[in-house]
């Protein structure tokens, strides 16, 4: 029975590893490859940490299992190893993990700066948000500036509005201004690896570069009330031309007063 317990503590990490190993083929992994430039960097860091963590996991669980196995196979007449520890070992297992942790920490800094530090944002997006994304319970309200003008923090006459659909150009850096009208929300685009809280009272610039045209999920990642789960929206990345056409169409629709149609149908 003693050996059973030692094997038990060897066995479950193997199951855990196996599950992780088959996970990507079963769809239990990232929803897709990262589809933004920053996403690639984030995933790269994830896999770096994953390797370090897996090695540590295997090493420590194997050592724990081995210590149990040693105890299980020890004759009851044999005495335990009387030891209060080892200064040398303590130094080794303090310094080695310290270096690894500092190393991990340092590898993160540049990417973090690229994502968050305003002055590190690509020049082309500095101070030129394409849209304002205003979260509210439980939808996303998008405000574009009137084509040919700049987005202002305060709504302007001629601004274009739409709900739950953000149109942005693909293959170029894009910046949006994130706000909330009521409680806290978070802008989460899983395939783009973008997440940023929308904080009441703040305007937070968020930038990303979507690599290919297409549709990407946008959801809320900060508890915002009973309907938190249903803040479902889309980010639609298109060529600059496509976005311009969309905005022109939107402007037409928004300024449509119905009169032209009435005249047309009267004739």
């Amino acid at each position, binding site marked *: 029975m*003693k050996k059973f317990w030692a094997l038990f*503590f060897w066995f*479950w990490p193997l199951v*855990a590893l196996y599950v992780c190993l088959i996970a990507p083929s079963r769809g239990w*992994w*990232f*929803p897709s490859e990262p589809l933004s430039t*920053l996403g690639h960097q*984030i995933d790269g860091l994830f896999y770096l940490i994953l390797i370090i*963590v897996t090695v*540590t996991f295997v090493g420590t*669980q194997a050592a*724990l299992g081995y*210590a*149990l196995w040693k*105890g*299980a196979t*020890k004759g*009851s007449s044999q*005495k*335990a*190893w*009387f030891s*209060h*520890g*080892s200064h040398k*070992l*303590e130094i080794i*297992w*303090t310094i080695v*993990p*310290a270096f690894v*942790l*500092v190393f991990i*920490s340092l590898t*993160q800094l540049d*990417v*973090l700066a690229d*994502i*968050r*530090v305003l002055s590190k944002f690509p020049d082309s997006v500095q101070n030129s948000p394409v849209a304002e994304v205003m979260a509210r319970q439980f939808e996303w309200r998008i405000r574009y500036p009137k084509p040919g003008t700049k987005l202002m923090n305060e709504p302007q006459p001629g601004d274009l509005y739409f709900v739950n659909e953000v149109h942005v150009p693909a293959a170029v850096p894009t910046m949006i201004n994130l706000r909330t*009208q*009521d*409680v*806290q929300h978070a802008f*989460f685009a*899983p395939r783009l690896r973008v997440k*940023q*809280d929308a*904080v*009441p*009272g703040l305007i*937070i610039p968020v930038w990303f570069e979507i690599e290919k045209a297409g549709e990407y*999920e946008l959801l809320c*990642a900060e*508890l915002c*009330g*009973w309907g*938190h789960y249903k803040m*479902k929206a889309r980010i639609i990345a298109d060529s600059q031309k496509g976005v311009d056409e969309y905005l022109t169409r939107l402007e037409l629709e928004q300024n449509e007063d119905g009169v032209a149609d009435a005249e047309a149908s009267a004739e």
Partner: protein
Amino acid sequence: MATITPALDTHDHSHDHAHGHHEQTFIQKYVFSTDHKVIGIQFLITTILMLMVGGALALAVRWQLAFPWESMPLIGRVFGLFHGEGGQISPEFYTMLFTMHASVMIFLVIIPVLAGAFGNFLIPLQIGADDMAFPVLNMLSYWFMWPAIFCFGVSFVASGPTAGPGNGWTSYPVLSDLAAAAPSSGAAQTWWLFGLTLVGVSSMMGSVNYMTTIINMRAPGMTLFRMPLTIWSMFITAILQAFALPVLTAAGFMLVFDRLSELLPTTIHSVFFVPAGIIVNNAAPTVGGGQPLLWQHLFWFYSHPAVYIMLLPAMGMVSDMLACMSRKPVFGYKPMVYSMAAIAGLGFIVWGHHMFTSGMNPALGMTFMTSTMMIALPSAIKVFNWIGTIWDGNIQFNAVFLNCAAFVALFIVGGLSGIFMAAVPVDIYFHDTYFIVAHFHYVLFGATLFGVFAGIQFWFPKMFGRMMNDKVAKVHFVLTFIGMNGTFFPMHLLGIAGMPRRYADPYLHGYLEHLLPMNQFMTISAIIMGFAQFLLLGNFFYSIFRGQKAGRNPWGANGLEWSAPSPPGHGNFDVPPVCYRGPYEYSSPEAEALGQDFILQTTAPPAGVQRVAVHH
């Protein structure tokens, strides 16, 4: 404290106490008792019962995630709350479920079971004192739990039976601040805050007591570095608690003032957390100049250290039990102490890692990332030392040991998954997904609760003079271990797949639809795990009355508590203890000379050996 001379005084004193012959009524003895052991057991039984409440809430959460919008057992039909909806719960009810699951588990189970139950029971016994420094304060710390439980209880129904507090245990404003923001943000939220504050009052009374007791009331010879690691962990936890808690209490009152400002005189009309111009649910725009991030800073300034309050005592207890069950000294006693101190110290400067996506200054994010990475270091040192403690030991494979080994094995998982979240860019993806849910359950359930299960089993004979059944405890261990991993391990994968937490129905989003079968598997595992706790409950209560009788020292352990009778009478020790050595001298040559593999801290060295008068 380090010399033997004061022993005579202590002797007389505890003698008086133990045989004082003042008759106690039943109520004085078992209800409003000032005896630390009774208070500890009161805390223990209360928290075990609350564990079942919190577990039931968790199972309801799991039900919804596995079988969304299907008739919920019990809540849906029997209680008739959602009879009109065919038993289908409402989304706001779901937000209440996870909010109260977390609140109950954190504030009414984990914190009080470690500090309240084990801290109370063990501190005087392990340091050789006859009781706590402030027995009445100690009694109050328990009895302040009940108003807290009452407030949490009222909060379930204060805004109607289907709208309990539902803003998460973190209760971020503005959602938790403006009553119009959600059905759960009305009176329920206020009652919840009162409950939280009262738990804080209880904890604070406890921690003041623990610090004083540990500093002042150690038995002769019990130097700081002869204290069991349990005592070190309780001491460090008490310090953390005492310095972090006031911040939460203050934040709680600020939120209460914000919320009640319409009822209170205008002089304390506050808007600490509400900026101007917020329009919630078409209510009038708010007037103010508050800052919601302030709450996050204040809340996490307490609640991150609180994470260690929920872990450190278990670390100390497990160190004690692993040494005993491996019949070996703790490997690296001083590094263990220093690493706990380091965890506590660093614990004060890492709170910002909860706010990596909050929009705070990125320079702060970098600082918090580095400090958070560094807090993994003392945790790693502890893991290595635990493995070193087991290494080449004479392992007793009983339920105590198995639960402790599980503590180490699962803490490794929880620690390693933390590294992903400490790294800000990676955390940006994982923040508020199931990855974090996996992480903290591995730490709080995998580590702390398994440590608690072991601790209950280990100190049970000292509490009740009887043993718990080892076979039943092993079945409980296996079922809980399998159920635990089956429930929480897949959560890592859900997190990687991008499933956000706190979603009543994640499958609304196409990219999460295929995760339903996995969630069903997890729910089945959770049900197994939940029902396995009845084995613990049954074993616990049955053994109180029918367990095999135990002597003073059934495990052959070294601590002072094992020199007292089981259970110890009022005043604890029949022979006032004098401490002659460290707590982990298992298999030492000194012990061998006595023909055994342990040597009680109270065993006097052979005549002529002057070890006691060493000043540290």
